[in-house]
């Protein structure tokens, strides 16, 4: 073998491999995509805008409502209307799917893994940054939606305060739905490795599937309770299902939180394992 002068570069002290550098890299990746800004704006707009819309509708109809109807209605239904959650589910799972699917589809994942061969670390950094940012965004959106809708309802004395039973739980459940959907989007994109099919699959799993499963039978009720959007509904409603539905297998609050936790853990595990095992 011929002796060669080593490049000067090798005498440069090697920097320690710091996890926070990976977090910073993922942070740059997230904010340098226009689709991130668009999706975040859509999530906030849908959460706050549709809460305002629902609260105004209640506000307008309130004088004509019967006492029974007023008693049944929860102010949280206006703060977190189901329509808003549909936008949130689509946009948040889309952000997650883009974060991973876009990186696979463009081939960037190869560049990323050549730069950081420790794939577990890359996966953890991605999960941390996206979950963290979307938890903040969800909290901001849910708090704003609650505040604005209750301010409107206060005018007709139909509002609730943050200290009332179920209020904080409703806010927390609606806030956490945002990062949870992003996690599901990430996991599906890590498996499918293309953005658009991952988004379609996420919408199918999160939004369409629950409509196909009812609570008639014990097994189908269990299946439904294990789904994310029904779990969110249970956590949002302060008193559980309305009285005329009591013959069904009702979901419990603790069961709904368990569903949240299980989806988060499974999605994070699937994402990490898929990134680690499959050739980019």
């Amino acid at each position, binding site marked *: *073998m*011929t002796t*060669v*002068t*080593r*490049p*000067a*570069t*090798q005498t*440069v002290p*090697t*920097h*320690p*491999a*710091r996890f926070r*550098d*990976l977090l*910073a*890299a*993922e942070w*740059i*990746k997230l904010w*340098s*995509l*226009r*689709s991130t800004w668009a999706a975040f704006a859509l999530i906030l707009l849908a959460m706050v805008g549709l809460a305002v819309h629902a609260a105004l509708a209640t506000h307008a109809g309130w004088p004509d409502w019967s006492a029974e109807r007023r008693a049944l209605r929860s102010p949280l239904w206006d703060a977190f209307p189901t329509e808003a959650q549909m936008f949130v589910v689509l946009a948040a799972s889309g952000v997650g799917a883009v974060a991973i699917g*876009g*990186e696979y589809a*463009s*081939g*960037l994942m*190869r*560049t*990323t*893994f*050549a*730069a*950081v*061969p*420790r794939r577990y*670390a890359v996966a953890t950094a991605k999960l941390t940054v996206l979950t963290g940012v979307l938890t903040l965004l969800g909290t901001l959106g849910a708090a704003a939606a609650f505040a604005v809708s209750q301010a409107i309802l206060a005018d007709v004395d139909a509002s609730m305060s943050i200290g009332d039973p179920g209020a904080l739980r409703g806010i927390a459940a609606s806030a956490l739905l945002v990062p949870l959907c992003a996690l599901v989007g990430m996991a599906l994109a890590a498996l499918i490795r293309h953005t658009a099919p991952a988004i379609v699959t996420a919408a199918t799993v999160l939004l369409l599937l629950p409509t196909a499963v009812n609570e008639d039978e014990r097994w189908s009720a269990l299946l439904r309770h294990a789904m994310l959007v029904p779990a969110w509904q249970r956590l949002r409603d302060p008193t559980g299902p309305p009285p005329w539905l009591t013959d069904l297998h009702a979901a419990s609050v603790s069961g709904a939180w368990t569903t949240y936790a299980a989806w988060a853990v499974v999605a994070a595990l699937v994402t990490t394992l898929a990134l680690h095992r499959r*050739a*980019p």
Partner: protein
Amino acid sequence: MIELDGLTRRYGRNTTAVDDLTLTVRPGRVTGFLGPNGAGKSTTLRMVLGLTTPTSGTATVGGVRFRELARGLRHAGALLDAADVHGGRSARAHLASLARSNGIGAARVDEVLGQVGLDDAADRRVGAFSLGMRQRVGIAAALLGDPPVLMFDEPFNGLDPEGVRWVRELFRRLAAEGRTVFVSSHLMGEVEHCADHLVVIGRGRLIADESLDEFAARAGHAEVVVRTPEPATLTTALVDVGADVRPDAGGVLAVTGVSPERIAELALGLRIPLHQLTTRTASLEEAFMELTAADVEYAARETR
């Protein structure tokens, strides 16, 4: 230094992309990595970088398997595919996130952007870039960590002639600094002006691993091209002195076995005018084609 030892990658039962490759890519010179399309070049480079897991055998960079490294950019820089960039990001954002992941400062990003001549386009989305500009982004990414080993997969694709010259000079400079420079191509013409050493593979198997000079010697056989208004007379005279004469395209004679001087003397003696007398060596390209002819995966059938 890159070392491959029995490196093999199979897909399914019947497809062997890389077949028992053993070779060393040494520092201080540019090594061309040649083979027809589908020969296994890209798969080999991906295995070196730990992106594809070998079925058997090992690939190491500086004695270490790449997957065992915490961070890669200071050990090896690679341009794998110019498209390995997200089109929605600016060149600067792409490089900044890569640099940051390896603890490399932002100043280095500006430095490599300048080095590849993308200062002015740095803040535009890569999706709007031409292939040549994307190649420059990829080359900038490879240079980020100032690594001792550099790998480039088909770096000349999409480059204009000025870009090709620039890249060749860059490779030579990197090698002169003592780095290992491994450049794949399916065209000999692209690497023959910058490589010192050639590795040729076909259908995943090693065909040649030798210096450019040794490879050129394979192309060896020189011949003399002669154009004359009286080919028949000259042919007879040349055959008489032991030359091998073959009529070639365009009415010329391709002569082997005698020197051009001897041919000129013979013609002078016979008072035959010569309109052309040139020597022709087979090009490296021809040697390469000959060597890999049997291993071309998707050959176009000759049209009648």
